[in-house]
């Protein structure tokens, strides 16, 4: 199946009421699916990555086959259809603007309204004889099951969190284990999210680095390799290392974790490069103030990708750490600038 999905070839296939016209989808992924997935993770063309909302068939389902509901984010759709190989069932895909189920549920686009109207549009009640929908558990922040039952007569069953557990869930008679209901945040989960932190951070870092190197022409004490390494390393520490090592760094607040790791990085680098000697102190002090604060800020941004931070918690963390981050950055920045423009060149 290509990225463009069924509608490029047969525009009529996505809006139908009769079961015969429903698009059947394959449960194996092609190379272009996988390449596309890789590109999305790295932030290229993320937004074109949608499937057409509507009703799809997996295998050859009849009126008794289960109906699974999901979002029109292609990565979600691909994972789902793969995990359903060998099954006969219906897939009802809601329009979430290409956003995954959980985020869309939080925003309300994967919501009761959309579900009810999509059911009407696809004529689901005529396609199946039973009155049951299986929703991903992570759709629950957007879907009020009692509301759906009242308005459509369909019973909502919340399935497991992860698509890979769906078969187990169905064969166990719609029973989920506790493990199936829990959201994790494994090393792998975090690794997959890292590009979305790292790429934007680098997009800002690169021009700044360029500007700094240009400004070296007017500087009394130009920035050298160690300075550049310290800076870039602080960005990597905040946007890559802190997310990856999250459970192993002390503290609960993300900014604290990032700051600790950033401090470790800057102090080690400056010590190894003998930058705490006389004549270097102003610059080094500036770096010790500025760079860990930068790591802290970047690490704090990762709260947006985490699966366990509450908005009240993030607000509290920000109220505490943002003033500190700002003060340290401004002070450190001024010290760096002074040493850069007016500092005496170190005689080697």
């Amino acid at each position, binding site marked *: 199946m290509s990225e463009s999905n069924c509608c490029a070839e047969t525009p009529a296939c996505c809006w139908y009421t009769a079961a015969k016209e429903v698009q059947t989808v394959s449960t194996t992924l092609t190379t272009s699916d996988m390449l596309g997935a890789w590109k999305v993770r790295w932030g290229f063309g*993320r*937004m074109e990555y949608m499937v057409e909302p509507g009703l799809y068939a997996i295998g050859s389902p009849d009126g008794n086959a289960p109906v699974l509901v999901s979002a029109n984010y292609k990565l979600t759709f691909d994972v789902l259809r793969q995990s359903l190989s060998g099954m006969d069932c219906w897939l009802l895909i809601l329009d979430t*603007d290409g*956003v*995954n189920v*959980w*985020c869309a*549920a*939080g*925003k309300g686009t994967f919501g009761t309204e959309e579900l009810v109207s999509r059911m009407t549009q696809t004529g689901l009640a005529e396609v199946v004889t039973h009155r049951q929908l299986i929703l991903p*558990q*992570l759709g*629950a*922040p*957007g*879907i*009020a*099951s*009692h509301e759906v039952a009242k308005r459509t007569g369909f019973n909502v069953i*919340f399935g497991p*969190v992860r698509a890979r557990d769906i078969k187990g869930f169905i064969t166990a008679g719609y029973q*989920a284990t*506790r493990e199936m*209901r*829990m*959201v994790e*945040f494994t090393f792998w989960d975090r690794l997959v999210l890292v590009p*979305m932190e790292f790429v*934007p951070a680098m997009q800002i870092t690169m021009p700044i680095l360029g500007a700094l190197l240009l400004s070296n022409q007017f500087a009394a004490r130009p920035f050298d390799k160690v300075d550049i390494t310290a800076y870039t390393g602080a960005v990597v520490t905040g946007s890559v290392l802190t997310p990856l090592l*999250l*459970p*192993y760094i002390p503290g*609960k*607040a*993300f900014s604290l974790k990032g700051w600790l790791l950033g401090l470790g990085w800057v102090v080690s680098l400056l010590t190894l490069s003998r930058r705490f000697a006389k004549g270097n102190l102003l610059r080094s002090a500036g770096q010790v103030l500025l760079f860990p604060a930068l790591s802290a800020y970047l690490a*704090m*941004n990762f*709260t*947006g*990708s*985490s*699966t*366990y*931070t*509450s*908005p*009240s*918690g*993030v*607000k*509290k*963390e*920000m109220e505490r750490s943002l003033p500190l981050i700002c003060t340290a950055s401004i002070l450190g920045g001024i010290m760096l600038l002074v040493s850069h423009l007016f500092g005496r060149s170190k005689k080697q």
Partner: protein
Amino acid sequence: MTLTYLKDVVTLSFSPSKCIGCGLCTMVCPHGVFAMKEKEVQIVNRDACMECGACALNCPAKAIEVDAGVGCAAAIITGWITGGEPSCDCAGPQKKSRCC
């Protein structure tokens, strides 16, 4: 290792007197905050709550209240700047969701 966030911050509140014991909250919660104990539902891990709102929205008896939203620093900053609700649409009107 299980990750837990800050202690005693969440806005979750539960009224046992309204609860009809359907157990739905124990099913929809992704962090095991609610559990059924001797036919009664209790909050067993309050600090694990991420304020997603799934339990409150799905409770047929309106026994749960929580100030739901997105736990994302960038979203909260955007909310402060625009004076609106924190939203995940960090990159603005193109519906680009950077943080999700």
